[in-house]
């Protein structure tokens, strides 16, 4: 078969012009469905970012007894540093603790009531995997349930941290399911739209077969068209998503930051992951368009 790009592109665009309504429907179906998928993905990613930044603020504070020996203190510090889950250990002496306390409560009545230095020294432990926080905390407790020698108390936000982790785990799997379902719905919808537009042109296919066109000759303009519809539709959805996430999400995030008093947030304008989501949507759009055409044609191309 001779490859004749002018015929194929010509037919593709003539087809699109003459079946404008079908063409328009296919593109907007792709654009709308992928927009929904993408919007959800970005929201999930965004929430994930919020949760991660909350998690990363999880710390274990190990308060030491005032009478702890220097040897024991050094021993503990080295021991903690050696744990895999530990990112960073900071020793806060009694003096430093008092200083910080004074700074935090400047001008407050409470400072006048403080006599001497009631604040304990402590280790502040940052973790590489915040989920392990309870495990780490338990290492400072002996078999009988008492704190080990030299340790006065261990604090890590016992209740809320555990809840946060189980909630995010459940929310994560629900979000995953919803994304899969949205994706499936998008694919089915796009497939059906493209199938309909091919069905509308079955007479053309019949004539082509009748006068002796090869299967590839029949197929190629439809494949171009399907690909183009998927590609153009997904580009539109990405442009919409871009404006949406730039204006709405950033505002939403500011609101979250303000109301929840979270230290820092992954503010998402366009970063790498978002770019991947956009690229993924465009690839998906083109691919679904192409494959839909290919599958839908099977029925009409026989004979």
């Amino acid at each position: 078969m001779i490859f004749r790009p002018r015929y194929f592109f010509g037919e593709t665009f003539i087809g699109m012009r003459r079946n404008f309504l079908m063409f328009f429907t296919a593109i907007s179906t792709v654009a709308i469905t992928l927009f929904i998928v993408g919007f959800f993905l970005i929201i999930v990613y965004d929430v994930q970012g919020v949760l991660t930044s909350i998690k990363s603020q999880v710390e274990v504070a190990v308060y030491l007894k005032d009478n702890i020996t220097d040897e024991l203190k050094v021993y503990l510090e080295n021991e903690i540093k050696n744990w895999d889950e530990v990112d960073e250990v900071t020793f806060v002496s009694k003096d430093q603790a008092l200083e910080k306390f004074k700074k935090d409560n400047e001008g407050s009545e409470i400072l006048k009531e403080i006599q001497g230095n009631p604040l304990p020294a402590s280790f502040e432990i940052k973790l590489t995997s915040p989920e392990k926080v309870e495990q780490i905390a338990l290492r400072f407790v002996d078999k009988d349930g008492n704190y080990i020698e030299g340790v006065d108390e261990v604090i890590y936000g016992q209740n809320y941290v555990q809840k946060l982790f189980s909630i995010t785990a459940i929310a994560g799997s629900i979000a995953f399911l919803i994304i899969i379902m949205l994706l499936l719905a998008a694919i089915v919808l796009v497939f059906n739209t493209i199938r309909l537009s091919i069905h509308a042109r079955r007479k053309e296919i019949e004539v082509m077969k009748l006068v002796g066109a090869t299967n590839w000759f029949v197929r190629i303009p439809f494949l171009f068209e399907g690909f183009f519809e998927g590609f153009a539709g997904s580009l539109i959805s990405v442009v919409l998503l871009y404006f949406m996430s730039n204006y709405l999400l950033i505002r939403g995030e500011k609101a979250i930051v303000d109301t929840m008093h979270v230290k820092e947030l992954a503010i998402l304008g366009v970063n790498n992951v978002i770019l991947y989501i956009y690229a993924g949507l465009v690839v998906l759009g083109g691919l679904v368009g192409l494959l839909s055409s290919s599958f839908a044609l099977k029925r009409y191309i026989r004979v």
Partner: protein
Amino acid sequence: MNMIEYRNVTKIYEDKTAALKNISLTIKKGEFVFLVGPSGSGKSTMIKLLIREIAVSAGAIFVAGRNICNLKQSRIPQLRRNIGSVFQDFKLLPNKTVFENVAFALEVIGKPSYVIKLQVPQVLKLVGLEHKLQSYPHQLSAGEQQRVSIARAFVNRPPILLADEPTGNLDPVTSEGIMKLLSRINLIGTTVAMATHDKNIVNSMRRRVIELEEGEIIRDQKRGVYGI
């Protein structure tokens, strides 16, 4: 030389309908043949077998000496380029002009555009539609539409032209015009086979008549009429 040969051909459809029962017949190059018989006797089945729209259940069909029953799927387009087909319902594309409808048949078999520019006006002149190149099918009479479909079938100058009830939707006067056109195409050497149950046409033409009844040939007459 035999252009077409049916050798002990039987066709049984999926639903067990026996449309053709052990048919044998030969058609010579340049012949004009009528396939006649009542509705459901198997005329269309014979035509569909020839362009491999369907496959035989038993027997063999030869076109220009070649058994088309064991043709690979990829060779079928080549067979169809050598057989023009015309139908009762014209099968024109409504959103293409007369010129485009005919040109389409050449485009999709990969003919270069200078061939298209040369052959399409030529064949449209042959069918008497040179003044309607830019019309759309809905702007034409039924007879003119059938001429376009004949032009499309013949533009590639195939050695064989098949017509399945081409006058089925036309009045007698218009039908006569179509028959003149088919005769002319036959006169330039094309083998023509036409299925019909139009008595007047068959009787006026005095050509070879093959009569079918319930999937069997009951008559094959050199210069026949519709019924005896």
